[in-house]
């Protein structure tokens, strides 16, 4: 196994996340795309850890940190979505134009 196969897989996954982020209108689906991108970053971290083989498993430690922060992000994000939906009866980003000029 070479390290590049993992890096290219993660690049493709990240690009899919970027596409979803730009194309989707529903906030929940945008959060799903963000999860895809964070996952691509995790693949990168673990692949570099396997390449460098550090004594403290640094890449894996950081992957765990990324997973934790992503979990917190989903919790807060969905709470905000819930609040917006309750007030506006919609979860589409293009209808939330109150603060746009």
């Amino acid at each position, binding site marked *: *196994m*070479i*390290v*590049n*196969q*993992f*890096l*290219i*897989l*993660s*690049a*493709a*996954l*990240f*690009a*899919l*996340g*970027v*596409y*979803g982020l*730009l*194309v*989707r*209108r*529903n906030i*929940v*689906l945008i*959060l*799903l795309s963000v*999860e*895809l991108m964070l*996952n691509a970053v*995790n*693949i990168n971290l*673990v*692949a570099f*850890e396997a*390449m460098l083989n550090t*004594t*403290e*498993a640094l890449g*894996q*430690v950081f992957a*765990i*940190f990324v*997973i*934790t*922060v*992503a*979990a*917190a992000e*989903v*919790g*807060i994000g*969905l*709470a905000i*979505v*819930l609040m917006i*939906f309750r007030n506006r009866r919609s*979860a589409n980003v293009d209808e939330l134009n109150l603060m746009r000029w």
Partner: protein
Amino acid sequence: MSFADWISEPVNWVFLVIGLAVLVSGFRVVTSKNVVHAALFLVGALGGTAGIFLLLSAEFVAWVLVLVYIGAVIVLFLFGIMITRAPTGLDEGLDSERKVWPAFLSLAVFVALAWGSVVAFGTNPVATTGTPTVTEILGESLLGRFVIPFEIVGFVLLAALIGGITIARRDLTPVEEEERVSA
């Protein structure tokens, strides 16, 4: 290293199968017309990623991914979907109409990242195969050198918990407030 050399390693067939499954599920996540299906395809993408982590001998991270993401985050997403749109069937209005430029941009991102990694790392091999990282090392690292980031991340989770409750809680109407005080 030629492609024939690369494909002659059986572990790379496993990688190809898992990687293809991850990419197909990821593609369905961003294109599916059904919100619930998109969330369920994310399970496929994340499960495949856990398989990739196992290939990279990162067993603990793989199971953390399965527990945290597939176990908790997806459930949270499905909950969010159920609460924000009652009709969970097909929906044509999920995507914006402009798709050419986003597709072009994401292709550019992929080409830039892939080209950069090919230039930078060539055919550098992955060091370990078959010997899983001992979880003890991970634990010593988390509670030794990285103990302060570890505590901060724990604090971030606590803050997110309290913040989530505060944001999502419905404020009582004045009448309800009255009843609560008198009760």
